[in-house]
């Protein structure tokens, strides 16, 4: 007896990875994840049914192959979803390193509120705690330092907290000669521009 396979097998899930190839942070595809979860459930049911219906035939190659192929599809669906979620988490971590505590709105709205928004927040706390324990801000000097002081042009009004404790407000379209360590965060966030 030849059993039919539930086709298509683990096809939709590939779309998740294609999204990640196109954009840095595509909108969280909750819908597709739900569809894949449903497919896994259905495949699991299919396997249970097959094993129950053909209880004495588990050694029969037609039966066992059917089960194995469906099981492989479940594993593939799982692996791709986990890869999708993990890669997004890595990209979210990069947001913290790029933008400190000021990530751009249009990227944040792409994150899943409950899972990913919370992940960003908790990762931020975790990183802060580690840096505090070590006694060094690791987000500084992401590029090897060449000069002590650099000239910057202010692109948008912002506040500068310098390493000697003073706070200074910077107005757009002005230029200043400031310590690189103090301003590199603001440059990364796009508020200042390094004048070369």
């Amino acid at each position, binding site marked *: 007896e030849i059993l039919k396979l539930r086709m298509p097998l683990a096809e939709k899930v590939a779309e998740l990875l294609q999204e990640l190839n196109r954009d840095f942070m595509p909108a969280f595809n909750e819908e597709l994840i739900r569809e894949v979860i449903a497919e896994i459930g259905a495949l699991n049911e299919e396997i249970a049914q097959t094993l129950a219906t053909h209880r004495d035939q588990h050694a029969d190659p037609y039966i066992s192959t059917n089960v194995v192929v469906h099981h492989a599809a479940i594993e593939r669906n*799982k692996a791709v979803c986990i890869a999708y979620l993990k890669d997004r988490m890595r990209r979210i971590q990069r947001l913290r390193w790029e933008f400190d505590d000021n990530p751009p709105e249009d990227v944040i709205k792409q994150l899943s509120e409950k899972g990913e928004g919370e992940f960003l927040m908790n990762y931020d706390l975790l990183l802060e705690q580690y840096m505090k324990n*070590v006694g060094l801000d690791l987000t500084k000097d992401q590029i090897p330092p060449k000069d002590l002081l650099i000239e910057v042009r202010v692109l948008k009004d912002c506040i500068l907290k310098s390493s000697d404790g003073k706070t200074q407000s910077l107005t757009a379209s002005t230029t200043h000669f400031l310590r690189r360590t103090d301003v590199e965060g603001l440059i990364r966030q796009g508020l200042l521009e390094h004048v070369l």
Partner: protein
Amino acid sequence: MAVSDKSAVLQLRQAWINERQSPELLQYKDALVEHIMNRLQQQKEDLQPTEENDPDQQFMLNLYKLEIERVEYLLRSYLRTRLHKIDRFYQYILTSEDESEREKLSPHELEYAMKYSKLITKQLNTSFLQFLPKSAISREEGAKPNLSSYVICRALESHGDVEVNRFDHQTVNLLKDDIFLLSYDSIRGLLIEDKVELI
């Protein structure tokens, strides 16, 4: 530890290079990092009270400050590189049967790794795993560092024959200052003993 500043910075620089070039996490240089951080703190305090109007003195001051920043860069990059590897290999590090994998981490790094692991797991569960049928859940393996990847190394002392190919037992003769491109696992032991350095 009566180590000159110059020597400490050179050691840090080599530790940094080794860490960047090696495929796996190396042993944390606890004493070295602590020593350098103390010296940096001291240097900063020494420079603090000086309010210089003399442009030549101001220039010297700026040179000192820049040097401090350069050393801080090494320190930050060293720690960042390690953190990055911990992020990639946290599952392997935390669940390995080999206890030495965890001993490579500083206490702060170990704490970070455990909490990081929980964060990742939480998000995977919340967004996906909790919705799957029980029978479909299995322990997934984390990425392992590829110890066969190739590195460029320099022999710090003459060591004689080192086996570079498990299958045909080919060896190379390491003389002091020789530079070789080898698979990391051939020199892994020598690196731990500081008999080679990576470049």
